[in-house]
């Protein structure tokens, strides 16, 4: 899922300075699960903003609403009236949600209330970790289901860097080296030979390096 975290209240006050009526709009999918932008966070952030804006010398009038999905026009429709009657929207959706609302309402200021961080999973209670950079050309089958592009800080495709340790990554002391995990996993499933060939340079065109990515399914466009 998409994992995000909340911007701080001082940051949001800075962003919303000069606004009067703001809709704080939550999203019921990924950001609800990662405790960043669901109904509960809409309520908490709205209360904090009411107090903080008063202290900052401008009292925000805030309306609260959470829709099922901000990245889908069908669900955005359910926020139409609330968006109309407010001066601006503070979206607690991911970056896709914020932009979907902004595209739908070109005359309405839409602000991001979250920092969208990564595609990841809940590792343990209230801890999320990144698992995928959406590079557009998945190589997980070659690495025992552990992604060297996402989980190795240097995106090494041919083995660990010289700073690898059995218990940690060179860059992040509290994280295991992805290459140690790949090695153990491939050894465990009897596929260590996969590591012996030199993997050629990756074609990054399918990733962010190739420019904006669009997927067209012609078979579903009829």
């Amino acid at each position: 899922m998409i994992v995000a975290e909340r911007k701080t209240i001082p940051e949001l006050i800075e962003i919303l300075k000069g606004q009067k009526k703001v809709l704080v709009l939550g999203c019921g999918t990924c950001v609800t699960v990662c405790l960043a932008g669901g109904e509960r966070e809409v309520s908490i952030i709205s209360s904090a903003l009411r107090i903080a804006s008063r202290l900052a010398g401008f009292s925000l009038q805030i309306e609260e609403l959470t829709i099922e999905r901000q990245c889908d026009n069908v669900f955005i429709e359910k926020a139409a009236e609330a968006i109309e009657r407010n001066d601006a929207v503070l979206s607690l959706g991911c970056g896709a949600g914020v932009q979907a609302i902004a595209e739908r309402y070109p005359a309405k200021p839409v602000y991001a209330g979250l920092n969208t961080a990564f595609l990841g999973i809940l590792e343990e209670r209230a801890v999320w970790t990144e698992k995928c950079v959406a590079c557009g050309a998945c190589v997980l089958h070659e690495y025992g289901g552990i992604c060297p592009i996402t989980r190795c800080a240097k995106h090494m495709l041919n083995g660990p860097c010289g700073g690898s340790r059995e218990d940690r990554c060179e860059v992040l002391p509290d994280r295991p080296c992805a290459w140690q995990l790949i090695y153990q996993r491939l050894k465990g499933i009897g596929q260590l030979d996969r590591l012996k060939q030199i993997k050629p340079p990756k074609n990054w065109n399918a990733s962010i390096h190739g420019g904006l990515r669009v997927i067209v399914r012609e078979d579903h466009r009829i």
Partner: protein
Amino acid sequence: MTQDSKLAQAIEKGAFIVTAELLPHATAELTVIEKVFGVLKDGPIAVNVADNPHGPVLSSLVGSVALIRENIEPIYQLVTRDRNRIALQSDLLGAAYLGIRNVLCLSGYHQTLTTSFEAGNSFDIDSIQLIAAIKKMNEQGVLLDGNRIEGRFSMLIGAVANPYLAPLELNILRVTKKVAGGARFIQTQAVFDTERFQQWLEAAREEGITEKVAILAGVRPLESVGEAEKLRDTLTDLSIPEQVIERLKAAGDEKAQKKEGLAICREVIKKIRGMKGLRGIHILSGGKESVLPELMVATK
């Protein structure tokens, strides 16, 4: 392809090789780095020029050219952290044009470990892919995009190995790939624990690696307890045993610690120089090039 660097010839002849390193400074003035040219001239067959190891300094390409002008043969270090394949190959062509004949391929410390920790990175290709790319440039005269290099291109390829990277099977697998990719010499991270180094060298020998490439063991004189502890705590590619730090502590004041650090380094050189399969010593002076003459003596 036969290579024309002095280092390539020494490898070919089977001579015992000593290399050293130059850590460029953040300067645009030659006078700042030329102070160390004297000691670099006297002894090592070639001198590595580091590629922005801990933050931006004079480029390793320019540093290498500065050495050539002084008749010192450079080993041009190239990290994949800051340049994509376009810039890497372009710089390699430029390096060859300027007379550089040896290159050491590394991934480089992650930029978050440098002074420019807010920088973005490239990591378009990894060090093994860089090695293989240069081999292709050498042998086929072809770039990664398939375009041909006009005229001759020749570069002796070097790689780095960390003898202490565990487990040994993964370590050797990685070194084997570097050799298969086209590396002709390997410089290791600094050796302190000579027993573990010997185990690694033995494993490399069993895999036939020492037959195919010249392995040069890195050695590093530690200046003080403070430096040793800082290196131990910040750089995971360095393995500095507790006994080494204890020895430095027991030495006394800073001057005595520096002397002890040099003594430890000399002892390491003496212990390892005769090891079967070892082809030379790479003196990692860590920016303190003045210690070189004293350590050169121990290599003989």
